[in-house]
C-alpha cells in the first residue's frame, strides 16, 4: 500500500519534471523576446547594456535549469528503482546545489541592472542550502547503510 503510494508520488513528480523541462525549452525558444520584455517592462530599462546582461543571465539560468531538472529526473528514476541511499544520488544532489548557487550568482550579477533580482538570488541560494542539507543527511545515511550491510 505504502509502496504503491510512493510509486504514484514518484510517477507524478517525474511528469511534473518533464513539464518543467518543456517549459524551459519553451523559455529558450522565446528567449530573445522574453529577455527584452522582462528588461523593458519589469526592470523598466531600455539601454543596450541592461538588455545584454538580461539576455546573458536569461540563457545562463536556463542552462542551469536544465541541469537541475535533468538531475531531479534522474534522482526520481533512481528512487523508482529503489536506489535510494547511493552515492549516485548524492552526486546528482551536488549538481543541483552547484547549479542553484550558479543561478544565484547570475541573479546577483543581474542585480547590477535590476535591483529586485537580488531577491531571486536569495531564493536560489536558500534552495541550494535546503538541497545541501538533504545531501548531508543522505551522505550520513549511506555510511550507516554500508555499516549495516557489513554487519553479520
Amino acid at each position, binding site marked *: 500500500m505504502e509502496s504503491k503510494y510512493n510509486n504514484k508520488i514518484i510517477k507524478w513528480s517525474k511528469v511534473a519534471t518533464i513539464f518543467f523541462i518543456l517549459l524551459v525549452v519553451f523559455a529558450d525558444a522565446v528567449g530573445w523576446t522574453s529577455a527584452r520584455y522582462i528588461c523593458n517592462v519589469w526592470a523598466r530599462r531600455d539601454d543596450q547594456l541592461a538588455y545584454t546582461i538580461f539576455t546573458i543571465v536569461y540563457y545562463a539560468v536556463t542552462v542551469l535549469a536544465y541541469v537541475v531538472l535533468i538531475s531531479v529526473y534522474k534522482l526520481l528514476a533512481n528512487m523508482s528503482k529503489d536506489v535510494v541511499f547511493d552515492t549516485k544520488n548524492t552526486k546528482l544532489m551536488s549538481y543541483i546545489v552547484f547549479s542553484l548557487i550558479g543561478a544565484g550568482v547570475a541573479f546577483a550579477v543581474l542585480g547590477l541592472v535590476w535591483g529586485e533580482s537580488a531577491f531571486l538570488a536569495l531564493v536560489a541560494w536558500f534552495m541550494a542550502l535546503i538541497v545541501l542539507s538533504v545531501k548531508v543527511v543522505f551522505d550520513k545515511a549511506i555510511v550507516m547503510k*554500508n*555499516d549495516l550491510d*557489513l*554487519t*553479520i
Partner: protein
Amino acid sequence: MAIIVNLDVMMAKRKISSGDLAEKVGITPANLSILKNQKAKAVRFSTLNDICKALDCQPGDILEYQED
C-alpha cells in the same frame, strides 16, 4: 582493523565447509565470506552465538586482537 577473524582456521579444525556452516548458522554464504575475508564491520552477538554453537568453540577461538 585490529580484530582478526580466524573463522577459516576453526572451520578447518572442525572440517566443515562454508556452505554447511552458513546453513547451520542461518546466514548467507556471501555474508559468511564477508566475515572470513575480514570485510565485516560488526558481528551480532546472536550470529557469534550461532557460530560458536555450530563450531563448538569460544568467541576467543574465532576473534583475535592484534596491534596495528
